[in-house]
């Protein structure tokens, strides 16, 4: 907040001393919206972490006991419970932003954002139910 510098520019007179303000390292604590953004970005650690957990499960697919031990590990369960709210926050923020990336025009009007986000939410519900059903369907029950 206290170092000044002079920057000559191509056009016009060389300006007098300018004051350059440094960005504070904790800028993301200065405004709720920035904090929400930072939490959204940090969800990637839990998303990546769970992907690694899936990789560990994949490595144990042919070893029934190791597979079961990993799933029963209190540490693994605890970490997943920490990751779950972040994963849900990722889903919610991700779907909420879809209308900005996916813009569909119908003549002079944009398809309303809530329809695009809403379609994603509906898909999320269906896919989640499908995944749980799929996971329950296997094994002894057929």
């Amino acid at each position, binding site marked *: 907040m206290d170092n000044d510098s002079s920057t000559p520019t191509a056009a016009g007179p060389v300006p007098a001393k300018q004051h350059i303000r440094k960005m504070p390292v904790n800028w993301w604590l200065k405004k709720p919206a920035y904090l929400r953004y930072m939490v959204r970005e940090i969800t*990637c650690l839990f998303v990546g972490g769970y992907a690694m957990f899936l990789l560990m499960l994949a490595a144990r697919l042919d070893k029934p006991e190791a597979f079961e031990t990993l799933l029963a590990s209190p540490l693994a369960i605890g970490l997943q419970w920490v990751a779950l709210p972040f994963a849900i926050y990722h*889903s919610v923020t991700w779907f909420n932003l879809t209308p900005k990336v996916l813009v569909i025009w119908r003549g002079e009007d944009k398809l309303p954002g809530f329809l695009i986000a809403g379609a994603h939410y509906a898909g999320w519900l269906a896919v989640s139910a499908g995944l749980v059903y799929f996971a329950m369907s296997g094994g002894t029950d057929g």
Partner: protein
Amino acid sequence: MARSNEPAFWSLFSAGGMVAAFLFPAAIFITAYMVPAGKIEADNLRMVMSHPISRLLLVAMISLPLFHWAHRFRFVLVDLGIKGFKLPIAILFYGTAVGSTICAAYLLLV
């Protein structure tokens, strides 16, 4: 200025974000609650996951979210003011994603 090759990484980031957004909460619910709570037998889940379709899905669920992580976390570091070491950081993060993808493909598909 030159056009960036970011589209390659951004596409993988977006695909990973999509896969994680749609599948991860339910998947965590299964592995962290339903199996430990006895709603699903661990061995049943193992058999479901061994199905060829599951194997393909698992490769996607491991690979793409890791590219999502690599891309997003690279920018988190910039957000936190770490502006140097851009190339080594990119190689380390995307390298982790590439390495894990190869591992997953080998474990699940070979």
